[in-house]
């Protein structure tokens, strides 16, 4: 372990701000892109269901028209 105490580790030899900022931003942006991909996935799957329902409604309306004629 390169540092005597945990507070030394946090201090990072005086460069704490830059090191932790870089690591923070890195893992934050990686987290964002990963979470966004999963949110997109669930919204897409919901969109599939919406498309199915839309098709059913259109088909039903078409049948009613042909009967009404």
């Amino acid at each position, binding site marked *: 372990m390169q540092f005597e105490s945990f507070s030394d580790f946090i201090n990072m030899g005086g460069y704490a701000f830059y090191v932790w900022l870089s690591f923070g931003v890195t893992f934050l942006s990686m987290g*964002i892109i990963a979470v966004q991909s999963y949110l997109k996935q669930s919204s897409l799957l919901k969109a599939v269901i919406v498309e*199915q329902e839309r098709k059913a409604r259109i088909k039903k309306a078409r049948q009613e028209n042909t009967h009404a004629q």
Partner: protein
Amino acid sequence: MWKWLHPYAKTERAYQLCLTLQPWFWAGALLCLSIGTVWGLAFAPQDYQQGDSFRIIYIHVPSAILSMGTYVAMAIAALVGMVWQWRTAYMSMIAMAPIGAVMTFIALFTGAAWGKPMWGAWWVWDARLTSELILLFLYMGVIALYGAFEDKQQAGKAAGVMALVGVVNIPIIHYSVEWWNTLHQGATISKFDNPSIAPEMLWPLLINLLGFALFIGAVTTVRLRNEIVLRELHRPWVQALAQQHIEGKR
């Protein structure tokens, strides 16, 4: 030629492939990233010159290498799409583009944060940072071009051409920026060169590199599955999948 690869041209098989690969990618990425980061932050030795700010190298170098690597992978996917007319190749190309842009952003941010203690300014027109910034613009161009088309088939081909044009230009940009930097060397910027890396510093770097690569692989498989679902919205296997997903959720 490459018969064994052919079945993956069909989207459903590619979807299944992604599903099987994905958990391995995630496991590998989390494992390598945690080991590499902890090792680099806590156990690797200090740099005699820059002290502990040097530890940013364990994320700056992997993200810089992989930002270039993802762009090359994107270009290869575009080439495969063009030569063998594989729709999944174009889809994987556009699936990779956003993560490549994120990697480039990470490389830029960590490079700037690393340079601040030494140069005193948050941004300096250093050769590598400048070519990294231009790479980000290349990524933005490909993504914007893909988004501009209504018909995603056409969008894939157009973005593919731009990816290939970009990949040919990357070395040209790199060397011209290097030359530009040495040309203005007198411009009071100390050349920031990589200090020689001792072996015990190299290992965490390589592990982190693998970690980042596996992370890119994992997110690419997720985004590729999204692209496949988006493009095959009306196919029965996708509708069955969506039903499963909704039942699973409920």
